[in-house]
């Protein structure tokens, strides 16, 4: 243990980690509180709150999948070029030419899994009543994260730039055109008319904003690429941090109500 101890007590180590080895309660608390990543979490959780039959670990798995998507996604960006001419071939090359191009498959399956897991997480939170006060705002953050998960999937779906992607996004973005008020084909868009000037037209409505053009094309691919790789993941990371931090601020992980009675 001589070497480990010498490292643990060196000035370098102590300048990074301000606490001793996490062998007692005080240092365990310090280990969580003084760590940028961990301090978002509650310092302590009830043992009962971690019962797999109670939590299903779906939130943790969803977060883990998000990390998998970030890591594999960044690696895919080394090969993928978002133009209609190159995108499909780059996607095929990842499958057939690039070593360990299976990362692309992992990214895709991870995305599918993330949607399922996030929904199961929501289902679990509903079943255990974990959305009730004081956690009602965290439920709302969770709904925003669900929407972000779906948007990430939707924007990523276009990136292979094949026929499936093209028509899926055509259909999907037509929904934006049918949205109330902000869609040119939606109900109530006439309300946003000032004198003669119509504000919501096929070249100024929500779909146009999404596509960057009247139909899915080069501009759309670029927009979805930026949304998928930069804007949405940043937003998701921010909201995930808020989501975790709120767990701590709302009194820790929700635990089964009869826990105290059972343990006592």
């Amino acid at each position, binding site marked *: *243990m001589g070497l480990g101890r010498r490292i643990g007590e060196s000035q370098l180590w102590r300048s990074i980690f301000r606490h001793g080895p996490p*062998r*007692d309660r005080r*240092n365990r608390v310090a280990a969580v509180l003084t760590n940028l990543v961990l301090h978002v979490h509650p310092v302590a959780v009830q043992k009962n709150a971690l019962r797999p039959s109670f939590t299903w670990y779906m939130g943790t798995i969803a977060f883990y999948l998000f990390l998998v998507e970030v890591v594999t996604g960044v690696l895919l960006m080394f090969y993928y070029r978002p133009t209609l001419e190159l995108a499909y071939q780059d996607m095929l*090359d990842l499958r057939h030419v*690039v070593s*360990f191009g299976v990362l692309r498959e992992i990214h895709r399956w991870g995305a599918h899994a993330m949607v399922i897991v996030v929904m199961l997480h929501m289902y679990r939170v509903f079943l255990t009543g974990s959305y009730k006060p004081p956690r009602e705002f965290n439920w709302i953050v969770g709904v925003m994260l669900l929407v972000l998960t779906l948007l990430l999937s939707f924007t990523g779906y276009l990136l292979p730039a094949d026929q499936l992607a093209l028509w899926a996004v055509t259909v999907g973005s037509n929904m934006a055109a049918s949205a109330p008020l902000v869609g040119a084909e939606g109900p109530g868009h006439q309300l946003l008319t000032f004198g003669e000037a119509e504000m919501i037209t096929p070249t100024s409505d929500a779909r146009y904003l999404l596509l960057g053009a009247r139909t899915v094309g080069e501009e759309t691919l670029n927009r979805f690429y930026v949304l998928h790789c930069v804007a949405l993941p940043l937003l998701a990371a921010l909201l995930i941090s808020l989501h975790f931090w709120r767990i701590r601020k709302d009194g820790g992980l929700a635990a089964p109500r009869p826990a105290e009675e059972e343990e006592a």
Partner: protein
Amino acid sequence: MEGKKAGAKRGPAVAQGARRGFLRGAFGSLMALGFWALGGAGLLWTAAVGRFLVPNAPAGPPTRFRAGVPGDYPRGHVETRFQARFGVWVVHGTHRGRDQIFALRSVCTHLGCITLWQEREGRFVCPCHGSSFDRQGIHREGPAPRPLERCAIAVAEDGQLEIDLARTFQEELGQWEDPASFVEV
């Protein structure tokens, strides 16, 4: 108070740690095995990512190409049509009194700009600092310190000249005497 308590507790924990043998510490628990597995997976992952980042299909033109038969090149001819794609001039010139066809790299030997063939002057001229090279690739003016480089050239089995951009020959090192650097005509 709390600090004292923590210190008091650390004593026996360390002593216990000191007593534990290295092997028991490293392999004795599921936790330790888990960390070994994690470390192993991390190493494999790092290796795989490293390999992933190495492109398998390099971009750019092939390093070997065919440039027609020797008969296409009259004496003194400088062929410019391969320059844009492959970066070489194919020349029927002379070296030490012998008639040769050779492939000159168009990269200036001064700072690496691309030279231009000036038919009227009979010179390869570098636009960056004004170096110029004669038809044989020998430096004549400007800061270029040495002649242009040759690429390997040979007559392929179909009778065409085959140029290999991967092998180069430098005059100042005597490498232009290498039969792989020219085709005798």
